[in-house]
């Protein structure tokens, strides 16, 4: 019988995942997507601890849990919690672990998921910790690439926008080390990928280069991964300047490869114009729809030792 190394495993960082585990998640998610579920979450209680607001991540985890027959407890902001009375996150997580089979946590502070893993007696999934990691988003992003391009190996991928503070990007680049990919990093100089993340990529043999022009990179890539540039990182005039440099319109895509696909973790503000939605390149809504089967796969593999196939 195939070994499920994800059973009872916490997913705090993208580096927690091996290539074998990635393959297992993909094959399981594909079965869920095809309507052939073999695993369930019957009698399981999943605690959704969202100390910070979330729409897509929270609802897709909730949908994944409910579709597999599991139950959800939790909260969507920390205003009414004992943490407001001074209780530590460590104690809170230790207590919630006693009520549940698995904890999904989003928290504004970096390292909150790693600390929760130490506190909890049940597995913990990081649904975003500050600007650090968002490993399940990276999983569904790469799953979307696998679905639309059939093979991740050999692809050229451009990462565009806020590469400094984007937690999804940090997890995505780490997960890329499982594959043979070439990355084009397109951002304003002030929002370039942190040196520490670049060092990790160098050590793992990922080829990458820095760029400041979207037009130069588009003809070379198979996947264009857009992210939002956050206004609060800039003064008003600087924001106007950098924002306009990275707006994707059908005109910018004239020299794109025919099979190019555009991804975005959403929400978008104005970095992808609405007209792009009608082009064959747009794949961000399909990408978002993959959130449920990928999270179904992850939850069910962590909570079922037997793969049921």
């Amino acid at each position: 019988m195939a070994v499920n190394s994800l059973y009872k495993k916490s997913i705090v960082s993208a580096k927690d995942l091996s290539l074998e585990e990635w393959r297992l998640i993909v094959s399981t998610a594909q079965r869920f997507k095809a309507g052939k579920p073999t695993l369930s979450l019957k009698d399981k209680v999943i605690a959704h601890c969202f100390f910070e607001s979330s729409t897509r991540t929270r609802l897709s985890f909730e949908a994944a849990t409910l579709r597999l027959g599991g139950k959800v407890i939790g909260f969507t902001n920390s205003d009414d919690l004992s943490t407001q009375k001074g209780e530590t996150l460590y104690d809170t997580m230790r207590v919630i672990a006693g009520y549940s089979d698995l904890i999904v946590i989003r928290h504004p502070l970096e390292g909150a998921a790693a600390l929760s893993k130490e506190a909890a007696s049940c597995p913990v999934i990081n649904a975003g910790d500050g600007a650090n990691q968002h490993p399940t988003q990276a999983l569904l992003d790469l799953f979307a690439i696998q679905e639309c391009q059939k093979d991740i190996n050999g692809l050229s991928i451009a990462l565009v926008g806020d590469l400094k503070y984007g937690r999804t990007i940090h997890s995505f680049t780490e997960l890329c080390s499982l594959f043979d990919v070439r990355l084009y990093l397109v951002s304003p100089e002030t929002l370039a990928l942190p040196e520490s993340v670049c060092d990790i990529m160098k050590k793992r043999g990922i080829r990458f280069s820095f760029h400041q022009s979207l037009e130069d990179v588009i003809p070379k890539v198979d996947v264009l991964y857009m992210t939002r540039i956050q206004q609060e990182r800039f003064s008003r005039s600087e924001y106007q300047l950098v924002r306009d440099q990275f707006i994707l319109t059908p005109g910018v895509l004239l020299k794109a490869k025919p099979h190019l696909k555009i991804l975005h973790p959403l929400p978008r503000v104005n970095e992808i114009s609405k007209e792009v939605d009608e082009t064959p390149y747009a794949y961000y809504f399909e990408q978002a729809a993959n959130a449920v089967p990928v999270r179904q796969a992850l939850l069910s593999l962590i909570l079922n030792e037997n793969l049921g196939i």
Partner: protein
Amino acid sequence: MSETLPVSAIKNGTVIDHIAPGQALRIIHLLGLQNSTNKVTIGLHLPSKSMGSKDLIKIESRILSDAEANEIVVFSPAATINVIRDFEVQEKVRTRLPSSMKRVFLCPNSACITHSESVASYFYIAEDRKQIKLTCHYCEKSFDRDQVRVSI
């Protein structure tokens, strides 16, 4: 002028020599020597042929554990540690960079959870292009050794 250093010899104990200038006081705190009853001699910014300037610590009646000796390397990779018996060097301690250290450093990332919870800091340690790099176990950020303050 005499070249002899104005530092007294010790009968039994440990001499930590060739410490990078400015690091001796950190090593004193790392080893908890400020609170111990051992006699300690500290030399700061002493002349050194190989280093130009160095710090030095002599600890009477204390032999360091391997873990303690290894932690000193994080502060001063070139430091030499000798065990003294009857005023003679009995053993040159071989050190290696520890793979991790708990409690010693403060994470420079203000958004790191270690600043808001009572949790011991935990850093992974590695050498990269002759620079000692520290990576926070919690927030996963990496820093040069000199960027990271010590909590001791």
